[in-house]
């Protein structure tokens, strides 16, 4: 289990690329502080469900509250911070 934040960021981005099929991107192409949902990556509501599945499967985190989800699934930084604080595996 990766505990170093920088390593976790790279690992999370790799999962992000795999789960969302962003195959023309490398981890370095995804900025940590750029909103995931919007013009940059162009993710949509189906992707948000894929992200929830990713967090459940890879880190044992279950997001059940939509309001909470909106605050977590903002950018790579917010998600990785949440993983560090709440992961169960």
């Amino acid at each position, binding site marked *: 289990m990766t505990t170093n934040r920088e390593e976790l960021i790279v690992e999370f981005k790799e999962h992000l690329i795999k789960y*969302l099929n962003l*195959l023309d991107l490398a981890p370095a192409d995804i900025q940590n502080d750029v909103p995931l949902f919007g013009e940059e990556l*162009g993710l949509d509501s189906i992707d948000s469900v894929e992200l929830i*599945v990713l967090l459940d*499967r890879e880190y044992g985190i279950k997001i059940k509250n939509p309001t909470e989800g909106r605050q977590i699934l903002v950018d790579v930084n917010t998600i990785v911070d949440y993983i560090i604080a709440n992961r169960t595996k």
Partner: protein
Amino acid sequence: MYIKDLYAISPQKTHDGSFENGDWLILNEYIYKAIEPSYQDIIPNAQLRRMGKAVRMGIGVSLPLLERNAKPDGIIFGTANGGLEDCIKFLNQIVEYNEGTLTPTNFVQSTPNALAGQVALLSENMGYNMTHVNGSLAFESALLDASLFFDEHKEEEKSILLGAVEEISDYNYNIDRLGERFKQELISNNELLNSKTNGSYCGEGSTQFYISNNPENSLAKFTAFKQSSYLSQNEIGGFVSDFLKEQNLTISDIDCLLLGKNGDVSTDSWYQEVEQLFGEKPKVYFKKSVGEYRTVSAFASYLAVQILNGKAQHLIENGASAQPHTILIYNHFDAIRHSLILIQK
């Protein structure tokens, strides 16, 4: 039903038109994979990344056709399996994650009607939308549906985007191969019909037609079609003769025969019965080009239209001295499901 336009992605170079202009690929593979064009200019990236091969090929065929023609009044597709690879992934995830949280993308893409739905969404088509999932007669069912649609709208001009799609899934290919539907040994497609073993080679692709009830500027027409199941070898001659009789045609009216012979010694004898019926007629064995799959009769129809319009003449055996005007397609799958399609200029 008049065919105004058509397009196909197949294991031959149909995507750029070179197949019908004489470029025939010799395939030395167990699996005849479709040659796909670059989709970057056709399908938005955000959608493309989620698409499985069946949906991708289907939309890759639909969108150019829709761009060249007026918005159709309906979209009717046939597929035996739809997005099979995504379906298998989804089913495996149910087991792997102990029926826990599942990803939506594989599920959405694996439903057989995902293609017709996505084409409608991308082209903002609110018309009739139907997908027929009827095994190896799925395209024939789509044809029947289109025919009924035009019957209901005789008084007004209507058009339909009609087609079929099938993709190879590794999982199903391996099972089918173990069951000897596909050959254990490797021979090239130009030797396929000389094979003395069971099975054929697996193909895939998407073929679509823009059809209308208005004959103006049409390339050809679907005149008639018929399907039947569980015909014995002794019954196949009667099946064909009855069909011709129903169309007020005789054997001499057929200019060219397109046969689904696939090099499988256990089932090619049904085709030999039909060949004997037609004697030395010009014929085309279309599965030499694209292999065996459950909606391959759509590709045969594509080829028939090309031949009727003076193209793909290099594929005709016992070559015709005159340009064909009436083509009969006979295809069966596993000698269980049989279909006839009559296409005329």
